[in-house]
């Protein structure tokens, strides 16, 4: 079997997805005929990613660990054209949402996804959700091991898991393979961090009970080093403890973080260990050859040897400021000399964050074929990533992305705003997110100023469910509803990365949209005036504390 550089379905995977589509086709028919009530049907459609939103059904397509082939991206574009209004929304969980779906079409859409080895299983419902991972996996220079190997192993184990499909609440697992944590592993139900023990063996730090939402919490390390062969036994043990003892009396207290919080990390560790010792060494043990077979699928593409430096790039960098800015923000060093990782920013000024048209998706797929070994990633910051770009291709790629509107030099900057769909689409939202994101990006639409401000993560959620990850934004914004008026509550100092993970602190009373934008402008000015060399916005905030920011925004010390 030829080695590939992303997981390819075999006959088993295809059979299961096809059978699942057939099952859902039957369930939809039973709902339309009235055999199933909405109450009975709702959990069935949700575990197939189908929500009912304000204007239509919404289908959330799983993009496991954010990895797409160019062919899969084209298929998504095709679905957007044929079944939706010609666009889709890339989410903070590396998935894609179609906003204008008809229930009657859903089985055909799932069939179109199955044709390119994709599905929408377990993108909602109280089950183990689509597994997320570092979007630079395999290409990052600092990686211990490709986390997608493990995300794929977890994906398979969790798919239609007979014991864990009706958990107290949803369950999110994230995997990172780098010391620089791009998967926010401390704010997931389970975070897995690959690292080496002193003897050089690869294993996992297992972090349990993190999460955002109504009660944000940073996960506790239950295991410093779990041998890799024991991963599934440990996960099954943790999920079993949660399934048995997690609260089911109150929707808002049903996540595993509440269980860990209520019984404490020590007791949780004891319960999980007792279960783990009974499961360890059973059929859940991962033999080396099973791990290696998956790992081979994620071998890097055959990359031709190239000089570590491109003279063409350096010449253009020196003479074109726009190109230099793009290189500084959107191009990341690669593990392989002569290559780069490119972020295609889905953050056009004044456009909804994370949205892409079918035309843009097709064009990015073509660019991936031409410049990135046919592979695309979705980041949890709602951008697309081209992970295998030769340095000599950067100039052509930059121009092509610019023509699409995806070359704005914003990655990691204030213009790289993360936002949930908000009240314009979402049945759960309290306030709109996208219009605020649009106006905020326009306010900071000067590329030179944005470069001067440097790294600044702004994240907007339209309700307490926190799909916009506002708790871990350097600047977090939560939309609230006060007697029918939309207001926005600002928090500062959040950080998603393991090692410095922090939940942002609320600055003060919620503000109108206009005042929110003015407040952010004032706080950025304060940062620029008071920062010391090398400080990011969040570093200055940590050094100064909240008071100067409160004074700037509310005119007094709160």
């Amino acid at each position, binding site marked *: 079997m030829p080695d590939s550089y992303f997981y390819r379905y075999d006959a088993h995977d295809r059979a299961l997805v096809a059978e699942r589509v057939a099952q859902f086709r039957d369930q939809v028919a039973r709902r339309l005929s009235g055999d199933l009530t909405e109450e009975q049907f709702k959990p069935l459609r949700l575990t197939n990613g189908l929500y009912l939103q304000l204007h239509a059904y919404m289908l959330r397509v799983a993009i496991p660990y954010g990895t797409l082939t160019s062919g899969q991206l084209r298929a998504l574009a095709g679905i957007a054209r044929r079944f939706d209004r010609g666009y889709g929304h890339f989410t903070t969980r590396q998935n894609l949402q179609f906003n204008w779906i008809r229930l009657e079409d859903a089985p055909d859409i799932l069939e179109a996804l199955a044709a390119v080895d994709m599905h929408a299983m377990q993108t909602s419902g109280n089950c183990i959700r689509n597994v997320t991972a570092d979007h630079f996996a395999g290409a990052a220079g600092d990686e211990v091991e490709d986390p997608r190997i493990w995300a794929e192993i977890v994906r*398979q184990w969790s*798919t239609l898991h*007979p014991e864990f499909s*009706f958990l107290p609440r949803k369950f999110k697992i994230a995997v990172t393979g780098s010391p620089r944590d791009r998967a926010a592993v401390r704010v997931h139900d389970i975070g897995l961090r690959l690292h080496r023990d002193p003897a050089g063996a690869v294993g996992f730090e297992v972090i349990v009970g993190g999460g955002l939402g109504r009660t944000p919490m940073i996960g506790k390390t239950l295991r410093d080093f779990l041998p890799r062969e024991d991963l599934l036994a440990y996960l099954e043990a943790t999920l079993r403890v949660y399934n048995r003892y997690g609260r*089911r009396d109150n929707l808002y207290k049903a996540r595993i973080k509440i269980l860990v919080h209520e019984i404490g990390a020590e007791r949780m560790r004891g319960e999980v260990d007792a279960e783990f010792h*009974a499961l360890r060494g059973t*059929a859940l043990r991962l033999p080396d050859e099973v791990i290696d077979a998956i790992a081979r699928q994620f071998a890097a593409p055959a990359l031709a040897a190239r000089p570590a430096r491109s003279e063409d790039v350096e010449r253009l960098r020196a003479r074109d400021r726009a190109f230099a800015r793009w290189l500084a923000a959107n191009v990341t060093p690669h593990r392989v000399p002569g290559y780069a990782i490119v972020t295609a920013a889905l953050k056009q000024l004044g456009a909804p964050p994370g949205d892409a048209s079918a035309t843009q998706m097709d064009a990015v797929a073509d660019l991936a074929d031409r410049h990135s070994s046919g592979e695309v990633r979705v980041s949890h910051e709602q951008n697309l990533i081209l992970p295998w770009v030769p340095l000599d291709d950067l100039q052509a790629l930059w121009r092509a992305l610019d023509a699409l509107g995806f070359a704005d030099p914003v990655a990691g900057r204030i213009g790289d705003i993360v936002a949930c769909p908000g009240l314009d689409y979402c049945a759960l939202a309290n306030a709109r997110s996208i219009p605020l994101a649009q106006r905020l990006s326009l306010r900071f639409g000067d590329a030179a100023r944005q470069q001067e401000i440097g790294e600044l993560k702004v994240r907007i959620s339209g309700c307490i469910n926190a799909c916009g990850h506002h708790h871990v934004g350097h600047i977090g914004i939560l939309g609230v509803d006060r007697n029918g008026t939309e207001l926005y509550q600002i928090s500062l100092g959040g950080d998603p990365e393991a090692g410095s993970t922090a939940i942002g602190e609320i600055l003060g009373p919620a503000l109108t949209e206009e005042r929110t934008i003015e407040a952010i402008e004032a706080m950025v000015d304060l940062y620029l005036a008071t920062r010391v060399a090398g400080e990011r916005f969040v570093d200055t905030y940590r050094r100064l504390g909240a008071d100067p920011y409160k004074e700037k925004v509310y005119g007094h010390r709160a």
Partner: protein
Amino acid sequence: MVTVHSGSRAVPSALSPLPLDAWLLDPTAAAVSLPNTASPDLLGDGLARLELIALHFPKFNDGRAYSQARLLRGRMGYRGELRATGDVLRDQLPFMLRCGFDSFEKADPPFGEAVRAAATLFSVVYQPAEDNRVPAAELRRLATAGAMAAAAAVSLG
């Protein structure tokens, strides 16, 4: 009226399961009904004498009994009848069968057909459970090992 539909079991037991509290007073009784908040460990030595354990789904989306079933089958070696009671719906049957349930209480005559259909709905499983089905990863490993053995035999021949 309550009907019991069989999974792999030929004839469901006609015994009436005792509520757990009553059974604990008389642990020689052959049938018990376990609330989904109770640990299967409570059955203790009495487990060996049980012919029927009923596990309860107060709502179809309360999944605690799945874990109880797996503990009884996989951990404690229970081989008697394991019956799902309460809000038992056909769309959950594939999961119940995999967790070791082999009878289902449901006052709905066509349900027996649903139980039979659920057993063959998915030809592939990804994880070991209580139904002895071989997960995809293990099938792949065996296929690779088989192919290597065949290749070795050819090269030797």
